[in-house]
């Protein structure tokens, strides 16, 4: 972990929202890019928070507080660096099979894709499968991203993919899945009908750009 990430982790463990803002503001002021803040500061700190829960060093309540602060921090950082561009073509819909505290990775993916010029629709946690399919039918996204952290939620992701595949759509979106449940067994992604999976948000951005972004932007 970098020193910024360690400092960020320390203020998250204290539940100090203002200090968390200050750490990130200082990093942005020093010219750190949003991608680097997400992947180099926020992500390692959140992984460490998860590990500390496993070690019984942190309670779920403390983890929730850290997540709430991270969501605010991400909103502020995104606001500072987001620039509207008029050439947004690839569209992604993102949905999460898990509870609120596991959405951070998916949100990072959406923010980073926005920076690459994508149009992302972030649906948050626990979207009913029928609503997801309705939205896919309505917006005809180029890609759909779903995440699951624990094994039983993979079933929900599998059912959602099956529903999208069964829907009568003019074009089938590329389906990307991620989250801890897929980390230990990447072949699980293809077994449940997804097109790709990635180890982290940065990897997912790269793969989606390669397999979707370039094709959509091509004349």
């Amino acid at each position, binding site marked *: 972990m970098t020193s910024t990430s360690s400092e960020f982790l320390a203020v998250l463990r204290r539940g100090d929202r203002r200090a968390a803002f200050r750490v990130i503001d200082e990093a942005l002021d020093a010219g750190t890019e949003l991608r680097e803040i997400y992947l180099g500061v926020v992500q390692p700190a959140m992984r460490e928070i998860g590990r500390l829960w496993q070690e019984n060093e942190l309670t779920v309540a403390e983890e929730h507080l850290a997540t709430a602060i991270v969501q605010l921090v991400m909103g502020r950082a995104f606001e500072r660096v987001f620039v509207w561009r008029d050439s947004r073509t690839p569209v992604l819909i993102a949905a999460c099979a898990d509870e609120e505290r596991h959405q951070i990775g998916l949100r990072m993916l959406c923010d980073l894709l926005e920076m690459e010029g994508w149009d992302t629709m972030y649906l948050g946690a626990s979207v009913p499968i029928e609503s997801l399919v309705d939205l896919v039918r309505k917006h005809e996204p180029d890609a759909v991203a779903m995440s699951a952290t624990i*094994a*039983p939620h993979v079933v929900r992701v599998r059912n959602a993919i099956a529903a999208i595949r069964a829907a009568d759509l003019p074009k089938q979106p590329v389906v990307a899945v991620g989250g801890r449940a897929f980390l230990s067994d990447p072949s699980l992604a293809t077994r449940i009908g997804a097109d790709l999976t990635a180890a982290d948000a940065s990897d997912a951005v790269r793969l989606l750009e390669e397999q979707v972004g370039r094709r959509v932007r091509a004349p």
Partner: protein
Amino acid sequence: MMTLPAPPTVALTVDLAEWPGIVIRISADARVMATNGRLDALLGVDIVGRSMMELLDHDSSWQKWERIASGSDTSERVWELIFGASDRVLDTGAYSVMRLGKNEGCWLIEHPTPPLLSALASEVALVNTDLAMAQRTLVIERARLAGALIEVERSNSALDEFAHAVSHDLKAPLRAIREYADVPGASRMAKTEAESARDFRRIGELASRMRRMIDGALDFARAGQSGSRLETLDTGALLRDIVVFLAPPRGVTIRIAPDLPVLDVERVPFEQVFRNLLSNAITYRRGDNAHVEVSVLDAGAQWEFIVADDGPGISELEQQQIWRLFHTSRPGEGTGVGLALVKRIVESQQGTVSVRSAPGAGSEFRVRWPKQAAGSQGPRSAGDAVTR
């Protein structure tokens, strides 16, 4: 699944059976020996006899359980565990571990959370998520509006400039036409037939010129509109085609550098920019000879095309004027639309154009064209009145 030998069952004391949370007794080899029935009901399976590893949802809880089972952690801490079976996963629960004698296992006793507090916690979490999503939407929407505002301001200033040019510059030939058409009056000598014929010819020329200016003004107005399809063009080949089309007179050499890029562009505006620049370099040459060079530099997100000539050059004062619609240094020849059109097209493609020149030292036009076509698909803002 491996069948385990039946574990010894143990009766619960009445107190533990009625405890409002989950209570289970676990043997030293990590199997459930007794339950108060709550975990069974929540998971929908019989848990007695099952291994803890089957009941905990994930490796994160397994690791915790291994630490509990090993007895290495002797603190009185509360443990947070997630139980799960088949497709059902419970929320995180907080448990106390009551250790029994050596090799006798332990009790796991849940700290029940008041239902109201759990409901409140999940409400707070939902509100927090909604807030984060709303904030994000707001950021995107605000940035979009800021972009639209810049576009509107750009359009407004273009509209002002256009209105000024049309009202001011189109009057000049009209004024001249009126002069020539003046019927012999008290203040004038009667025109001879030859003079009349000459004046009619001039009126005809002026009318043609006005028509060219109006056509030019229309081209200028339409130049901001985009939306034609992107094509992958070899810009070197395109420029060589333009040179053939322009058919430069003897004495004029135009050299196109061999390393011009292949680019995704809208063909018509791109072609128009370089046709106008090359045509200017030919028209405004010094004497009969001219050397024109087109080259390119990689400027990061943009290509910088350079059209350099050895013409008479442009004074600093004149350089401020050349981009204005209807400005021309040779009123008899040009309509003054060419460079105004170049600037408008390039800017509508999110590029820039600039000139470096000094009298007697030739001119160098630099066009920065984005490598990634921008805004070619998106609708123009409604405020862009000039382009409608």
